[in-house]
């Protein structure tokens, strides 16, 4: 059993959420409040272990008295606030943002994107066939993972995970500006020539599949990737004594990728190169 450290008690904040008086611990975001009330708000750039950058703007809600909509993922509930999550204005913004995203990037491997596009009746095709896209070729410069920035929505999660929030390696950052902004190493160097230590923690947080294991990328290209046929087994990494939890994703008796549970108090989802990628020897059956 893992010990969960208790936090000091927090005061409760009372505010109105969709007409209902709601009480949440001080410091909770509107999204936290919605989720504990069993309500679903779409979000892409929010991550459970990173400070949200609120860049995707899919989770916007209407706060009474505010000129603009607020991102539910990072706006904290304040006493007396009145929040509506499903107004016409909020729904319109979510719809357009989904259209803008789907028309400029490849959301085919983004979990739930298809579902939300349907729910909000978004029509990404209406910007025309000539609408500018990211148009990036997959960057394959090492054996461990692939960067397919055609799928990148610039949520900054990989940058935050590589930087001071998780890994402290600082191998990647956002370069350029506006529509030309890209996640990049210094001078756009190949990953093996950069500061990258191949911990794969950026893959762990990527919400769109822009970063993926070479195994997954290859199997998707071959049409053999089948998540429904996969099992997940969480075990303890055997490489050293830290005791990180690793979750092995197995398809047809082969490990196809490794993740790590975010609620583990030792790693919070982090692994090193060995835990993340060093699984070949397990299936070496000679």
């Amino acid at each position, binding site marked *: 059993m893992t010990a969960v450290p208790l936090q000091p008690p927090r005061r409760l904040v009372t505010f109105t959420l969709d007409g209902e008086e709601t009480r949440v611990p001080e410091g909770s975001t509107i999204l936290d409040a919605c989720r504990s009330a069993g309500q679903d708000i779409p979000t892409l750039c929010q991550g459970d272990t990173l400070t949200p950058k609120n860049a995707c703007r899919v989770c*916007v809600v209407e706060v009474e008295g505010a000129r603009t909509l607020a991102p539910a993922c990072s706006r904290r509930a304040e006493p007396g606030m009145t929040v509506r999550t499903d107004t016409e204005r909020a729904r319109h913004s979510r719809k*357009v943002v989904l259209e803008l995203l789907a028309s400029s990037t490849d959301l085919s491997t983004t979990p739930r994107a298809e579902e939300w596009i349907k729910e909000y009746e978004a029509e990404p095709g209406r910007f025309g066939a000539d609408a*500018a896209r990211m148009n990036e070729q997959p960057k394959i410069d090492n054996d461990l993972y692939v960067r397919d920035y055609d799928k990148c929505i610039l949520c900054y999660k990989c940058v935050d995970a590589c930087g001071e929030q998780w890994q402290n390696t600082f*191998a990647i950052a956002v370069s350029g500006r*506006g529509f030309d902004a890209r996640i*990049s190493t210094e001078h756009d160097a190949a990953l093996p020539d950069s500061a990258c230590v191949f911990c794969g923690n950026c893959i762990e947080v990527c919400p769109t599949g822009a970063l993926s294991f070479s195994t997954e990328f290859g199997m998707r290209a071959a049409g053999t990737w089948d998540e429904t046929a996969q099992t997940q087994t969480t075990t303890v990494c055997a490489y050293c004594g830290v005791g990180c939890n690793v979750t092995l994703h197995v398809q047809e008796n082969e490990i196809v990728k490794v993740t790590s549970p975010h609620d583990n108090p030792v790693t919070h989802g982090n692994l090193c190169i060995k835990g993340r990628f060093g699984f070949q020897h397990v299936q070496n059956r000679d």
Partner: protein
Amino acid sequence: MDLRYTDATPTETEREAVDALLGPPSSGWDGGAERTGEDLRWARGGASAAKDRRDQLLPALHAVNDRVGWISEGALDYICRRLTVAPAEAYGVATFYSLFSVRPRPAKVLHVCTDLACAARGSQAVCADLTERLGSPGTPAEGAVWQESPCLGLCERAPAALLLQAGEDPVLQAGEDPAHTAPLSPPAPAAGTVRCSAALAPATAPALVTAVRAPLEAAEEPPAAAAVPQAGDPALVLLRRIGTVDPSSLDDYRSTGGYTALRRAFTLGPAGVIREVVDAGLVGRGGAAFPTGRKWQATAQQADGPHYLVCNADESEPGTFKDRVLMEGDPYALIEAMTIAGYAVGAGQGYIYLRGEYPRAYERLAHALRGARTRGLLGPDVLGQGYAFDIEIRRGAGAYICGEETAIFNSIEGQRGEPRSKPPFPVEKGLFGKPTAVNNVETLVNVLPILERGAVAYAATGTETSTGTKLFCVSGQVDRPGVYELPFGATLRELLDLAGPPERLRAVLLGGAAGGFVRPDELDVPLTFEGTRAAGTTLGSGVVLVLDDSVELPRILLRIAEFFRDESCGQCVPCRVGTVRQEEALHRIADRTGAAAAQDIALMREVGQAMRDASICGLGQTAWNAVESAIDRLGVYK
């Protein structure tokens, strides 16, 4: 923090440029050529040292770019070692700003403005002519490269161009003692490439080619007063010194009432100053019209410290040039006003965040700062009152977004100039995470007449909710473009009458690219915050761009859309992609009207609404305003 640097090495010149800013490296750990035995006994640097020096990143990038013309891999790596910054992050910062290049390019770069005021006055023809003489933009020729540029803030002399030549700093070369007052024009340069800049306006292609060949012999810029058609009028308040005093002379400044406001501030005390500013009803002139006194009060009462004062001099709104004229024509006024503001909010350090395209304003302000320090008007004991305050100028490097109040903080701190989410607001967590008051240049300069005359006398001018006078940047098709100062409440017609309107007026753009158009039959709109709001438009930063019927409006709208696409920081989706989709739609309907345009207009409306509602900052929220007003009020595509 274990950072990995590249193997690229800087050239001697690049190393010198960085060391001139940061001083020589103290050991092998921070970029010294070799590690000595002593270095190897302990490690210096680390995360805390990095946090201390990260804010030198932008100045260091400038140092190399100013000296060499671009930033090589070796130079960037050396800067990173000196400052303990990760190379990927520094690369992200360097590629954010349009005045920097990370690819080789000539030392001479000619920026030709193609923005609104210049477009209305023939920049297209200048560019076409220039293409014939120097080749297409971006292609080096004759040791120079030219490129199209967003607004250079020289709108009264449109069409405009700015030539920047990298090279050795002539001031440093002459061995100037920073404590002494320097001559305004740099001394004659020695052999070799000397850093210089030349604002060329009004620009013609032949004159630009001549200037490119010999930048140091380019015709001198007219004095700041040339931009003030009312110069010498005794009714002027904010502009009263421009053209009547020498901007380089502190004595001139003091003999015309300079530093009486600061003396009064010291007798009133910080709380008294804030009370005067509140009573005067001063609101911000940068565009948002927030009450200045309330902002100061909120900053002053924060328990966390230190407090900072930031002067927003990143005047990049197309069509705006009033702050440039104030800074070039009356630099001591800004310094005195900042000293008062710093005293009121309890700040010991002020920053002027100046846009990179204003070399003359930089020179004048730097000179004035040295003068003020020498006379004890800045420094550890201002006027012997026991108040310590100093000001540093930070140059931007070509990014409109850095005029957004929180993007300024990121830029000064050495991060990408992306805006931050609010709340928390700057008064609570601003520069370096500390309470910060951010004010525009014009706002700050208003503090002087408030303290000189008293709040009541100040508030007697203007209307009840818009007190005082306002500076307007009149450009486009008028006889006398320039900065005008009028009491709030004057009508647009009165302003245009002063500037000489065109015979066949088509439209007036108020508030710049983020503002709105008004029709010729709406000229009686009172120029106040409430009056323009009631008329469905905005005063914004004071832009009054006048267009006659020779101008193709769809082309102007396209330029506005292009501007926002280029200047979006790219952080949030509605703005990053929305600005692109809007520009695409405007391209599609460039020559269409009526039903043929209706579908794309509906599309733009939907995207515009989402940008207004869901963007992180004001850029995305206002990017659709001007185009929308042109469609609704001018019926452009009918």
